[in-house]
């Protein structure tokens, strides 16, 4: 297991072939973040996980997935959490900079700044920003990568709790570890690291034996999300100046014609009047 290096960006490695579905990470996360318990229910559909989805009270969730393989029913687990993107949409869309990508890796949220517009929830490609719908003055809630622990050189609570499937450490080391596993056991893994390129690169890498779509992973664009909006936004000052200058020029031209005509008329008037005066004399 590699060590946390607070000088470098750290990432998670979650090996789903090794996840036993014990949900120790969920419990550890609840404890560390002092999150209240949720009432759960039995539902059909995506799986038998409880609760149904991550929420203001649940930052990480082990999803349970059933699928068919060679005519047999198989199942798999999948840990859902904030992906701590390299260039996160939540950071770029927030009007007041409430989200910050820290150099240590985690994407954190400063609740003092948040105005509650919920744009981060629309922006996040993994739908990981949740809202405190139970509160009167709600804030955004999500996994903060246990930032307070990382700063002290400790692993995130969920990684510490996990006996088998999770590793945490500097980006390059973890990536090498993942690639090594893929090379070493090509028949155990699907040859892909989910999270490496998704949304322009994230801080959580997944390894699995089954197609990611079947496990319920969203197919997410490979481009960093802010790069979609930036082209339009970077045009803002130029547009402002162009429209302003263009309209000013247009106004000047259209009004000039009138003014010239008016001046001509006035001159004529004056000439006429002086002429008439001269005549009188």
């Amino acid at each position, binding site marked *: 297991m590699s060590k946390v290096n607070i000088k470098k960006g750290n990432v998670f490695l979650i090996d789903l072939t090794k996840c036993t579905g014990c949900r120790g990470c969920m419990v550890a996360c609840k404890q560390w973040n002092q999150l209240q318990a949720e009432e759960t229910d039995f539902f059909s559909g995506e799986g038998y996980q409880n609760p149904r989805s991550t929420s203001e009270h649940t930052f990480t969730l082990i999803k349970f997935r059933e699928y068919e393989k060679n005519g047999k029913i198989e199942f798999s687990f999948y840990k859902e959490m904030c992906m701590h993107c390299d260039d996160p949409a939540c950071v770029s869309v927030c009007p007041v900079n409430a989200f910050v990508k820290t150099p240590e890796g985690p994407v954190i949220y400063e609740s003092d700044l948040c105005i509650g517009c919920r744009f981060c929830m629309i922006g996040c490609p993994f739908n990981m920003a949740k809202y405190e719908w139970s*509160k009167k003055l709600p804030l955004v809630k999500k996994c903060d990568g246990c930032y307070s622990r990382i700063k002290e050189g400790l692993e995130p609570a969920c990684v510490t709790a996990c006996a088998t499937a999770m590793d945490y450490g500097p980006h390059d080391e973890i990536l090498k570890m993942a690639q090594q596993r893929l090379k070493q056991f090509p028949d155990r893994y699907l040859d892909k690291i989910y999270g490496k390129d998704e949304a322009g690169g994230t801080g959580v890498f997944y390894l699995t034996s089954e197609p990611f779509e079947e496990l319920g992973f969203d197919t997410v664009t490979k481009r960093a999300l802010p790069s*979609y909006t930036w082209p339009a*936004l970077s045009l803002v000052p130029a547009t402002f100046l162009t429209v302003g200058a263009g309209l000013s020029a247009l106004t000047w031209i259209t009004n000039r014609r009138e003014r010239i005509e008016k001046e001509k008329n006035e001159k004529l008037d004056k000439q006429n009047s002086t002429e008439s005066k001269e005549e009188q004399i």
Partner: protein
Amino acid sequence: MSAARSISNEFNSYHWFVKLMMMLVVVGAVSAIIRFVFGLGATTNLSDRYPWGLWVSFDIVTAVPLAAGAFTLGAIVHCFNIKKLEPLVRPAIVTGFLGYSLVCVGLLVDLGQPHKGWHVLIHWNLQSPMFEVAMCVLAYTTVLFIEFLAPVAEKFGWKLSIRVLRWFELPLVILAASISTLHQSSLWTFFVIAVDKLHNLWYNPLLPLLFFMSAICAGICIIILEAISCHKWMGQPNEDELLATLIKILPWTIGAYIIVRILSMIFLGGRPVFDTPVMTWLFAVEMGVGFILPFIMFSRMSIQNNVRFMGSAAALLIFGVIMNRFNVSMFGMMDPNEIYFPSMIESLVTLGIIAAHILLFVVIARHFPIFEHHTEPEEHPLPAYSRS
């Protein structure tokens, strides 16, 4: 006592429709109070799946283009120098000012932390479309407010202010148009970030441009509808002749929008496009009924100078724009397994906001000189350059 009587006299003198509006405003205000007392989660149908609902879709994303008439007309009259449309400018400014003020109200109701709304002013994030729109809406509401001061000053006969305002008129018109260009388009940059969420029928990188173009069309159509209804119900002069001039502009703007819309969908949009029948229907209605039909109506009108269908064509286009905004901000991101429907409180607040707009317009139109045709009075001499 006499104050109360004059208020009740004023109240009684209104048409029943206006009284209905007053009731809706009161109901809306009460609903807004309930929303603040019990919180967003308890009073709305918003959820983690639908963080934005009716309030964003209508009160902000739809209301802003509907209030675009003020800057469009200002630019047409003063920059393109089509001076005969001048009488329409003031009602448009009043509509715009009301519209934007109510957008601000809608925004405050929707924010989870409204008391911190001012943070936008000090914690700038230039990467955020929301930041840009918020700043523009604030700036533009201020500009509209100053423009709106003109009839107020005239009503109370503040000569100096009238002169100063006149002097600022042109710079304000240009400023208004530039700011509007920015936020009318940036509103759609909101949804450019929803890469894999918004349906391909609507998602494409030209969204900001399209949003801007359709806002211009919507703004002009609102002016048309407004002029027609003021003539019909408020005893204002018939402006049909002026409107006919305005109508000559419309086929061009709508046509340009339709062309860019379809080309961008073919060449820049994602695939697949027509995979869900519901979305295809929504798109067909939006495009067919809301844009292409009024385009045909307006273009035939300008040839024959026939203004008979003007009102219905304008209404259709406005329908198209509203539909388009809802498709982008709500329907196009729907999950068929979990449909969002606005709650009672959400609907009542929005109804209240619409009613407040109509009501305030009627009251202002009654008490302030917004419909008088202005020939510049001699006692307010103007600086030469802005004389029209």
